[in-house]
């Protein structure tokens, strides 16, 4: 293949992916918009250009499928076909197929994908022009029972078993019925109501991460402006040097202006990698719609904070966990209509999806007004699966966190949450790999709130420099609460062997950082005296801890450097930075040490 051919194919694939995102949102809105004429025209144009470009760069298979989709859209445009849930679902399914096809083509230009099924379905609905209602009724009627049994089996087989377990009989009955029906029914139509059809599950090409980003032109202009200014300053300095005319005051001025420019360039450059979260929310809207439809629940998704921006890498990775949480919210959280009415709630349930930026952290909040988390059931399940022995010392928070433990749910939900092997434990793991955290709040009967906190990956961090055993380390400013003179406090010892101090009424555990970092000889804490003068108080998840250190060396803006994998996953170490003196310094995440310290405090050697 010639070079230019590769180029045009690649650029088509990139553009096509974002075209597809737009198309998907448009399809979803089709159902709720009053006058969809403009919408449909828009979609038609998108599909038409998609088909044309695909053909032009030589992706015949894609063009073929696009052609069928275009046919249906033509009929919708001229009102010869009505926009029904069936039609919308079919179009969304087409988007799914196209997405997989595109993703496969990205890794291999010769990727072949069998789209005959979806083409048939598109052709069938096109041919049903004039008798659309009958056609749909036939399909609906045939699969009504399947949908019913799917809905029943989904709500029975769930991850956390929070509802009352249904009768043994109903479960086996509905699955029997399911088996019988599939034997007799047209395989294609039964798959129509599955968000992931069998054919798409078999061939799921590896997710090739997009190497390109769309950047707002405004950002680039701003960046170029600042760079221009920097060039000007450079010339001024240059000229002054040539003229031999350098006053210290001039230098100071130029430097001061340069500093401002550098800061601005830094800010804009880092923001280039940030993309708005809106497309992610659109995808989630789709997921929610699919799940709600299968379960026959009336759920509405409200979003807020669409234009909060996230680093692209983070966005790519957070979509799976969020999808899982949304599915859970609809699947387990939201009761069916009958139960909602009994509980005095509106038939229509709502899920709120919100993105907020606070300081250095982006919070993504999923809130629902469903049935909330049942603490008793969670504890039962955890004990049943051997995760804990008793719930005696568990705070409400800790009880909720149990659902993140691997092995919490042994049954894999067949229809819904399968396909990607994402469980709640993977959700937590992914979030933690992004150096984030998950918080859960819930009121039984009212609803639940899941909050994912992700630190924005800025390359520059404010931190304080501390030293322990003659080695300097960095503690990120956001973690720090205050510094104290430890020699003014009297430590007490708890029954676990922990040392604590009383700081203005708050009881805070004290850990020795030198011990924590030293592998040899973990001092058992019989020596209760605090050795150091200096202590720092850090806080995580609303809990404070105090660390004994040798000295504090000041505060600095630290450039965070990428480090190799060999160090990257050590406990307590977030990364490495270069401090003012040019030394390399490790950036510590004291949270890991405060947990560790507590644990070792328990097992006295």
């Amino acid at each position, binding site marked *: 293949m010639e070079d230019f051919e590769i180029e045009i194919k690649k650029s088509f694939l990139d553009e096509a992916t974002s075209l597809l995102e737009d198309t998907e949102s448009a399809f979803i809105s089709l159902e709720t918009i009053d006058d969809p004429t403009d919408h449909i025209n828009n979609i038609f144009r998108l599909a038409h250009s998609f088909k044309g470009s695909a053909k032009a760069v030589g992706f015949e298979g894609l063009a073929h499928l696009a052609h069928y989709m275009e046919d249906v859209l033509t009929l919708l445009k001229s009102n010869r076909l009505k926009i029904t849930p069936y039609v919308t679902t079919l179009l969304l399914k087409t988007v799914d197929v196209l997405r997989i096809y595109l993703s496969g083509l990205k890794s291999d230009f010769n990727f072949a994908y069998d789209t005959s099924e979806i083409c048939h379905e598109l052709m069938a609905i096109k041919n049903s022009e004039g008798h659309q209602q009958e056609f749909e009724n036939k399909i609906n009627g045939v699969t009504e029972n399947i949908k019913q049994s799917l809905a029943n089996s989904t709500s029975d087989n769930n991850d956390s078993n929070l509802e009352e377990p249904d009768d043994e009989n109903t479960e086996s009955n509905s699955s029997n019925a399911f088996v019988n029906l599939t034997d007799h029914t047209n395989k294609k139509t039964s798959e129509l109501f599955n968000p992931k059809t069998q054919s798409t599950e078999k061939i799921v090409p590896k997710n090739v991460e997009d190497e390109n980003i769309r950047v707002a032109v405004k950002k680039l202009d701003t960046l170029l402006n600042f760079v221009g200014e920097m060039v000007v300053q450079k010339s001024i300095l240059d000229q002054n040097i040539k003229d031999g005319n350098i006053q210290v005051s001039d230098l100071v001025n130029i430097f001061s202006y340069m500093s401002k420019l550098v800061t601005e360039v830094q800010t804009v450059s880092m923001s280039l990698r940030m993309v708005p979260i809106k497309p992610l929310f659109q995808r989630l809207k789709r997921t929610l719609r699919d799940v709600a439809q299968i379960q026959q629940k009336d759920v509405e998704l409200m979003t807020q904070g669409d234009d909060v921006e996230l680093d692209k890498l983070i966005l790519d990775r957070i979509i799976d966990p969020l999808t899982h949480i949304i599915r859970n919210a609809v699947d387990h959280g939201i009761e069916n209509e009958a139960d909602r009415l009994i509980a005095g709630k509106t038939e229509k349930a709502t899920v709120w999806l919100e993105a907020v930026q606070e300081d250095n952290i982006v919070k993504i909040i999923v809130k629902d007004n469903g049935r909330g988390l049942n603490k008793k059931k969670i504890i039962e399940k955890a004990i049943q699966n051997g995760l804990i022995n008793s719930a005696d010392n568990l705070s409400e928070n800790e009880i909720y966190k149990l659902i993140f433990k691997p092995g919490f749910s042994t049954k894999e939900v067949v229809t819904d949450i399968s396909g990607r092997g994402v469980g709640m434990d993977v959700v937590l793991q992914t979030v933690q790999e992004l150096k984030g955290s998950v918080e859960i709040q819930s009121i039984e009967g009212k609803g639940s709130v899941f909050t994912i906190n992700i630190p924005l990956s800025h390359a520059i961090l404010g931190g304080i420099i501390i030293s322990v055993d003659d080695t300097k380390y960095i503690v990120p400013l956001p973690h720090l609460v205050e510094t104290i003179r430890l020699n003014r406090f009297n430590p007490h010892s708890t029954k676990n062997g922990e040392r604590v101090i009383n700081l203005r009424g708050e009881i805070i555990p004290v850990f020795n950082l030198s011990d924590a970092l030293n*592998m040899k000889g973990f001092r058992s804490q019989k020596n209760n005296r605090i050795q150091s003068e200096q202590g720092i108080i850090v806080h995580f998840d609303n809990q404070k801890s105090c660390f004994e250190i040798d000295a504090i060396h000041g505060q600095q803006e630290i450039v965070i*450097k990428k480090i190799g994998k060999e160090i990257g996953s050590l406990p307590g170490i977030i990364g490495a930075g270069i401090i003012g003196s040019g030394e390399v310094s490790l950036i510590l995440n004291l949270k890991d040490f405060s947990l560790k310290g507590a644990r070792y405090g328990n097992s006295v050697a």
Partner: protein
Amino acid sequence: MAIQSPEQNLNTSHIVNGDENNQYLLFFLGEELYGAPLLQVKEIVKILPTKKVPFMKPYFKGLINLRGQVVSVIDLRMKLSINTKNQNQGLVMIVETNESSIGAIIDDLHSVHHFDKSEININSNANKQDKNTEYLYGVARLDENRLVNLIDMSACIGNEDLKLMSEMKVS
């Protein structure tokens, strides 16, 4: 593949017109000569002060600031358990791994040499059993009296797990 050591008197007269694949960087660890495939070596720098890292194996010397990049450095002599009174340890060989660079402390450079296939003796399978010396994959004859131990640097320091404990997850 620049060799940045202007102070060193590098004897390159041994470079015969061969392709890069047959060229080896010869260096000293103690009194022994070792040879690494030239393609694996990114650069050589003078040794810089290293910053210690907790929880790592003893031969993990620490981190250095290499022109703004943070690079891990390993004491190669310690890793290969070479005991010698020679205290040189003046240079660091930077090897490029799939994601980043890792440095290995060596004592001195000898030369860049091209070995023909005939001059190389690849180790038989017997030695491959010992995982720890898998990367020492052969011997080459330099001249009448001297043999060079061929070492695969990428395998030696590139992909190995350098952490003291492999499972360091904190719950």
